[in-house]
């Protein structure tokens, strides 16, 4: 059952990715991207990595994508990129992407299967287990990440302010 769900959400993820690339209107592309994020969260849940699934929904769908949708609603996007969706490099890029995808498929499909570790020997991917391990081993990285977030906020504010001044 888990394998079927994994396959279903993987197909859904590929479908939404194709929609993001091909749809004309940015808002529809953004909604397809939300579908992709939710599909990936479902894949993480199928793998048992519930903490990443929660992060995916809360941070990506709940914050990043909502921010992007707000920006799209603020902007008038009916310019030349609306009428002419693809660049002149569309055909060469599609051909190269097909070749790269085929090469990766052949390369990764030919890798030997590695035996799965014994049951009970690994770690749990629940939120509590992750929180304890995270604060024990990665607290300094967490502090650095908060500084990075603060710098990002200041940089975005400075960019907007610089643009307002001319």
């Amino acid at each position, binding site marked *: 059952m888990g394998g079927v769900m994994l396959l279903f959400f993987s197909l859904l993820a590929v479908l939404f990715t194709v929609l993001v690339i091909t749809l004309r209107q940015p808002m529809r592309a953004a909604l397809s991207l939300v579908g992709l994020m939710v599909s990936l969260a479902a894949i993480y849940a199928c793998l048992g990595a519930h903490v990443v699934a929660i992060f995916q929904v809360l941070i990506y769908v709940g914050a990043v994508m909502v921010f992007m949708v707000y920006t799209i609603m603020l902007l008038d996007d009916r310019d030349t990129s609306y009428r002419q969706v*693809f660049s002149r490099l569309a055909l060469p890029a599609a051909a190269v992407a097909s070749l790269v995808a085929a090469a990766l498929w052949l390369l990764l499909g030919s890798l030997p299967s590695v035996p799965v570790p014994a049951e009970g020997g690994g770690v749990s991917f629940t939120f509590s287990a992750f929180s304890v391990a995270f604060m024990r081993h990665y607290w300094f990285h967490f502090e650095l990440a908060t500084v990075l977030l603060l710098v*990002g906020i200041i940089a975005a504010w400075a960019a*907007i302010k610089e643009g307002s001044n001319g």
Partner: protein
Amino acid sequence: MDKYQFLTVLSALLFTMGLAGVVVRRNLLVVMMCLEIMLNAVVLSFVTFAVRSQTLAGVAMTFFIYVAASCEIALAMAIVVLLLRHRCSLDLAAHQDLKG
């Protein structure tokens, strides 16, 4: 092919499609979305290998990727708004003089 190999192939496929989207699309916002697809493909491979090896390092790495993605999207949207204000267009062709 076991499920870990399958998911690695899926992440490679998503990364390739995101890269193709960055190259072929003309709209700045959709290009940003394709960059997010590439980022998510990397996260998928991290999670796959973390679950495969039963370690938390890959999961912790995804947390930091999410932080970096949040910063990136905040800055990128600010730059998109500024570019639109100066050139009144989201078309990448209107911003050709930004290169190099």
